[in-house]
């Protein structure tokens, strides 16, 4: 049975569908060119993002989620190269733009919040100086304007502007992460890409940061791509959810649908891997085995060696994304040569979830 959910869908994203996507990723592939051959870290990922939307991307380490983000923001460094597809952001294909052309887009229209604020902030410069740097680099030179805007963005993330003079080590982890977000919002971008911004925080700080991000999004209307390994974290905040495995989209659809009725055995396994704080204490198994080594290509589905529902065909045929109701699932249970052994509506809704309360 499904329990009552928070109203995470109240965001204007629904109405935005008439506007057309702001970001379209088409068949994007990224490979790391290694001596022993190319490793496909992102494999033909496609999606579109509408203005004001909150998209969650979840997956384990090495599933390609950070590489995907970097490819969207065109921040890849060799040996990583885009080997196919494109990223169309506000009508412009980002792949192949020069640094100078990207400079006009980055930070003004699209900004990135990096994973570890402690490493992303300069330890020997005050927060104010770092905000100033960013603004000057993007053409704001008036000292007044810089001071005004710096104080403004800090206030937006509930940090007292006295901290403009503070150095990163003088701030708590949560405040550092907030000031990173303040920096990302300097030019009120249309899209903010966040790479595990909360992973270094404890649950209380994490929750308060998430609530704050959601509030800012409601006020300013930017779209968010939020990458995390913690599926439960985005459950209340994202409108759509993409589950990645081995560089591919494993499942992709409305967050609530994916949570209430995970179709891909991997999504189901991920959800089952979280002990619950409420309800009965039930033994969990997690997912046996470990994520695959992408440098060792294999025939068939990448998840087959760990999959509880593996069929003989899984090790022979590479699954495509199949539509099941409104959700896209890369699993041969739902399509492929066998035509999908699971009927679409009775679609093997993984194990019963224990709501229990």
């Amino acid at each position, binding site marked *: 049975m499904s329990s009552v959910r928070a109203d995470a869908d109240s965001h204007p994203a629904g109405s935005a569908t008439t506007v057309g996507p702001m970001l379209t990723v088409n068949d994007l592939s990224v490979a790391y060119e290694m001596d022993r051959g190319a490793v496909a870290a992102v494999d033909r990922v496609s999606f579109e993002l509408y203005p004001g939307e909150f998209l969650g991307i979840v997956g384990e380490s090495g599933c390609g989620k950070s590489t995907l983000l970097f490819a969207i923001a065109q921040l890849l460094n060799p040996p990583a190269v885009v080997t196919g597809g494109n990223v169309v952001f506000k009508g412009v294909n980002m792949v192949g733009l020069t640094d100078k052309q990207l400079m006009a887009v980055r930070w003004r229209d699209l900004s990135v919040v990096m994973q570890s604020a402690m490493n992303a902030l300069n330890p020997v410069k005050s927060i104010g100086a770092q905000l100033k740097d960013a603004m000057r680099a993007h053409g704001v030179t008036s000292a007044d304007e810089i001071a005004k805007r710096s104080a403004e963005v800090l206030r937006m993330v509930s940090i007292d502007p006295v901290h403009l003079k503070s150095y990163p080590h003088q701030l708590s982890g949560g405040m550092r992460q907030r000031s990173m977000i303040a920096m990302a919002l300097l030019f009120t971008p249309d899209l903010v890409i966040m790479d595990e911004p909360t992973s270094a925080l404890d649950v*209380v*700080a994490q929750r*308060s940061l998430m609530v704050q991000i959601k509030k800012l999004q409601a006020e300013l209307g930017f779209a968010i791509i939020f990458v995390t390994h913690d599926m439960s974290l985005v459950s209340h905040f994202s409108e759509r959810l993409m589950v990645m495995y081995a560089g591919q989209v494993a499942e992709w659809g409305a967050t609530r649908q994916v*949570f209430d009725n995970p179709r891909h055995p991997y999504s189901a396994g991920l959800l089952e891997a979280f002990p619950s704080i409420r309800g009965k204490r039930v033994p969990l198994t997690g997912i046996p085995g*470990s994520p695959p080594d992408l440098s060792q290509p294999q025939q068939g589905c990448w998840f087959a060696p760990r999959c509880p529902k593996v069929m003989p065909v899984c090790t022979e045929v590479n699954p495509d994304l199949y539509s099941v109701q409104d959700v896209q699932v890369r699993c041969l249970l739902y399509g492929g040569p066998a035509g999908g052994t699971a009927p679409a509506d009775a679609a093997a809704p993984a194990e019963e979830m224990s709501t229990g309360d």
Partner: protein
Amino acid sequence: MTDPAPEPLLRTEKLSRHFKIGGALSRRTLHAVDDATLAIRPREIVALAGESGSGKSTMARLLAKIYKPTSGEIYFGERPLSSIRSRKDLLRYRGEVPMVFQDPFASINPVFRASHGILRALTLHRPELSRAERHAEALRALSAVGLSPAADIMQRYPHELSGGQRQRIGFAQALSLRPKLILADEPVSMLDVSIRIGLLNLMANLRDQQGVSVLYITHDIASARYVADRLIVMYAGHIVETGPVEDVLASPRHPYTQLLISAVPDPRVELNISAETDKGEPPRVIDPTPGCRFRWRCPLAIDECEQVTPELRQLLPGHQAACHVAVASEPIRAFG
């Protein structure tokens, strides 16, 4: 301990650890752990939970005898740890109470095979074993933590092992010493979600099959609930609540515990926005004044909280909280 439980394996009495901070002339002191009294019994998993900076890792290092207490005492069985002087005794203690570290990528030497750390620890802590016995013991420990084939794993280098496997090596290293208590400092937080459960199950197995106690230090109380028998919640260096894990989580008596529980994201239940009301101020542990250290964040704070540091009070059988407003008859309702 008031409940009729077996003698504690290890207990602390009014344990404190302070750090001087700032330059040589600074008199400022950071109170990482203050007046902490706790007990760990045989065959039990005790979870020590709290946010970063709450003093939980300092506690682990005190128990591992890496730090010396500023005041207070730790007893291992009957013996106070301050009486351990010789290297031999210290090695012996650390063999009985080994530690498992957070980061399996940093805690294993990458240039040696997986067997190296285990064999070396055995040479140090159990010098009575012969070479062949050490080898047999390493194999036993590796199989006990679910690494098979053990002989093959021993020959591998760390980079040939996954994060989950490396962390199992960490546990095998501890287990080979035939420990009584394993201090596990955030042992699963660096691991992928899908393999964390495996490690948590391993800790439960070690308790059930090998009779080892575990102090499981974590900020993830959902996982604490999953494996632990008892829960200790720390805030700003103080133990604020302790009791059987289900009792504490089902009906917390300290406002901070309630806040911690309400902040756990759970896709299966509605978002509890009440956490938004939390001011989220970091605790003040540098030269703290008397009084409750949670009072700045606590909606229930009364005058007494400003003046008197609350002591742990027994509210229910085995369930204690350090809060002036907590009562035995009902759970605390500070947030929402």
